[in-house]
């Protein structure tokens, strides 16, 4: 029993990490007043570009007669995933901030675009590689569980806390840094003002356009890293058609569940992660697999119902979220 629970915990952390990354990116974006529904799309873009980045780097090194370096390979994957997500968010930002297009429509379009982008290039690179695309053992190893001296060897706690891949720790640190950023830093305070009330922030001399662009683009980059987790960790460096499938939407729901707080996001991501992989650990006889697959979505609906019933001004969506700002509007 205890083993099952430990196993479930570890699996929940592993499954929750891409959700956490996606949610963190979206929290940062929404704090600037942009509701970017393109998380799924940006995750797809991050997923394929990171895989392609690692793959082409390895191929280039191997054809030159050398042997690829795992750390360099992961760094390339991280960079390309970030850039791809940021690139998607940049399109979104240009459309909504500069051209003032409707945020919902633009976000949904980005999701459709990113999904197509990921699947198309995934198949294309696979075809050229002769059937499917996969990274070498070196890179796979770089994305597998770490072994931290001493800490990983502590009984019980070691496996529970110190034997994950590096992206898990990356996500947790990102969440803590972001929580600090919103609550303690001057730029974070300004950013919150931009998302709550851009006219006020503008009158206070804050550069609205710059803040919105930066938050949305960096947020998109973090979503892209969440996508990288799907292709490099979850599917172990092999392109699987539709590998992100729905995780981007769960991340959007998680933002609401976490009430726009990165710190709470960590806990909530663990719960959602647990729900997505529950069927492998808790077996209820006679319950079809499909029902298990519905759990995270049922939880999302419940969360939406509960959060809209509870009215709190502080743990709510930034007030101007979803609205474009135009200074001279009369």
């Amino acid at each position, binding site marked *: 029993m205890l083993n099952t629970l430990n196993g479930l915990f570890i699996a929940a952390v592993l499954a929750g990490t891409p959700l956490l990354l996606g949610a963190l990116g979206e929290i940062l974006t929404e704090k600037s007043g942009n509701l970017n529904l393109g998380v799924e799309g940006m995750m797809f873009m991050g997923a394929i570009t990171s895989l392609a980045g690692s793959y082409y780097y390895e191929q280039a090194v191997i054809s030159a007669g050398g042997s690829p370096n795992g750390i360099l390979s992961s760094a390339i994957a991280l960079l390309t995933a970030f850039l791809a997500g940021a690139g998607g968010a940049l399109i979104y930002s240009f459309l909504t901030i500069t051209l003032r297009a409707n945020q919902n429509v633009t976000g949904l379009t980005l999701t459709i675009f990113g999904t197509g982008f990921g699947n198309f290039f995934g198949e294309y690179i696979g075809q050229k590689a002769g059937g499917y695309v996969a990274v070498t053992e070196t890179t796979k190893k770089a994305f597998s569980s770490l072994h931290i001296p001493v800490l990983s060897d502590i009984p019980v706690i070691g496996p529970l806390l110190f034997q994950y891949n590096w992206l898990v720790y990356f996500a947790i640190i990102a969440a803590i840094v972001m929580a600090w950023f919103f609550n303690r*830093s*001057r730029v974070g305070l300004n950013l919150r*003002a931009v998302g709550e*009330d851009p006219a006020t922030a503008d009158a*206070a*001399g804050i550069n609205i356009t710059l803040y919105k662009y930066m938050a949305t683009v960096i947020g998109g980059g973090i979503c892209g890293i969440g996508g990288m987790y799907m292709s490099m960790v979850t599917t172990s460096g092999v392109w699987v058609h539709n590998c992100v499938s729905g995780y981007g939407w769960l991340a959007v729901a998680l933002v609401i569940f976490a009430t726009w707080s990165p710190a709470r996001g960590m806990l909530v991501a663990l719960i959602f992660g647990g729900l997505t992989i529950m069927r492998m650990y808790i077996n209820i006889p006679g319950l079809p697999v499909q029902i298990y697959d519905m759990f995270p979505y049922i939880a999302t609906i419940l969360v939406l119902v509960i959060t809209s019933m509870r009215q709190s001004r502080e743990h709510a969506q930034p007030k101007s979220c979803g609205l474009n700002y135009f200074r001279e509007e*009369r």
Partner: protein
Amino acid sequence: MSGAAEYAVKMHHVTKTFGKVTANKDVNLELRKGEILALLGENGSGKTTLMNMLSGIYFPDHGEIYVKGEEVTIRSPKDSFTLGIGMIHQHFKLVDVLTAAENIVLGMEGKATVNRREINKKVRELAEKYGFDLEPSKKIYNMSVSEKQTVEILKVLYKGADILILDEPTAVLTPQETDRLFAVLRNMKKDGKSIIIITHKLNEVLAISDRVAILRKGEYIGVVNTSETDQTQLTEMMVGRPISLEIERPLVERGEKRLQVIDLTCLNGDGVKALDNVSFEAYGGEILGIAGIAGSGQKELCEIIAGLYPSIGGSVLYSGNHEGVPVQERILGLKPDEIVKKGISMAFVPEDRLGMGLVAGMDMTDNVMLRSYKSNKGIFVDRRNPKELAERLVDELEIVTPGVDTPVGRLSGGNVQKVLLGREIACHPSVLIVAYPVRGLDINSSYRIYDLLNEQKKKGVAVIFIGEDLDVLMQLSDRIMVMCGGKVSGIVDPREVTKEDIGLMMIHAGDPKSGSGNEEVTA
């Protein structure tokens, strides 16, 4: 440019257009150092636009701006702060979920981290210096309107502004709060600060300012010394022709009881009592004024009577005539269409004209039709009669519109209100509830609205008038009910009490005499 330095701000031939609309045309304005200049004009005369060019929100199309003798280009609010200009906007520019101190330091340069203890201390010291009472760590959404205004003023002082622009600062304050604000402004003037105050209340202009500059329809009319002018001259300059400032109160014999409200109680969104045992009666042929600070329950009261808001206790009784037959009904808890079905003719002109009253994107005919389309038989609606009515309203009420096919959202505030009020009056109501009918309207439109209400009163309608300007309420109403924190502080005859009495009743529910003299003692 000798002697130029005695001017804090000088605007020279400034023009600003929005599309085809000219908001400011060739305006010259001078603010002397250490004076309080009132900027007077009707709504839409371009006062706020002009000031927004000083605060960097808008950029002028033509003209020059000099600050402290030097020509400057103000491209953004930041440029404006650098020049020492601080503007306190009419609609507060504060972030609700942040604290007072956080709002004050917003957008300022400084260390990468925000030390809350330190900024709270600094803000508290500044507040004490000018005699404000403010808790720096209080969140804005927990604050009263006057506290929010304090935060706004401290915000610009904290940034070291020595030129302050206040856009209609008294619109939301009680007379007592206004006096306190004026005292603070005089302190600031003594401190060497130059102040521009935008307003359209003449008595305030005369009370606080050294000079008055007047704008009319975007053009600069002139400047006069306050000590050498009076209300009549100012009105004439502002409106362009002499206008009587007297509001008529025709003597009408009080009719029968139309509406009786007994012990009405309701909760607001946070579960706090928004109305607490409110009782009153409204009679035909009288205007019952309702006074109170914004948010004292006025909105809930009229929405409950109109059937739009739930109550938790009490009763509302209506009596009147429907096609010659006397009707007596309890209307509390009925939906608006059920009230109509019972043959009760009640009209409600809500505060939020384009949100609750009219559909901004629809034209006049369609908006008029909203009142009548349900009586159509069959699946088609009759557009001809509503169109005729709309055209009649345009003629009778002198509504300025390109035509009845123009969306009402494109009309000016005064014309929107005429459409709404005209439509409601056209239904021949026996009870007419109007909430802040002249808010944001200029003098001409306001007086037209007062006339319309008086006409209804003469016809024997029970008019309930929720207002914010005490002077108007006192001249127009036959009786005034004063509300405070959801309670009725009293119902008075405006001919027998003073404005100060009502002001006190607005802040102290119940006994108006107690608690007034204690404020100075706490210093």
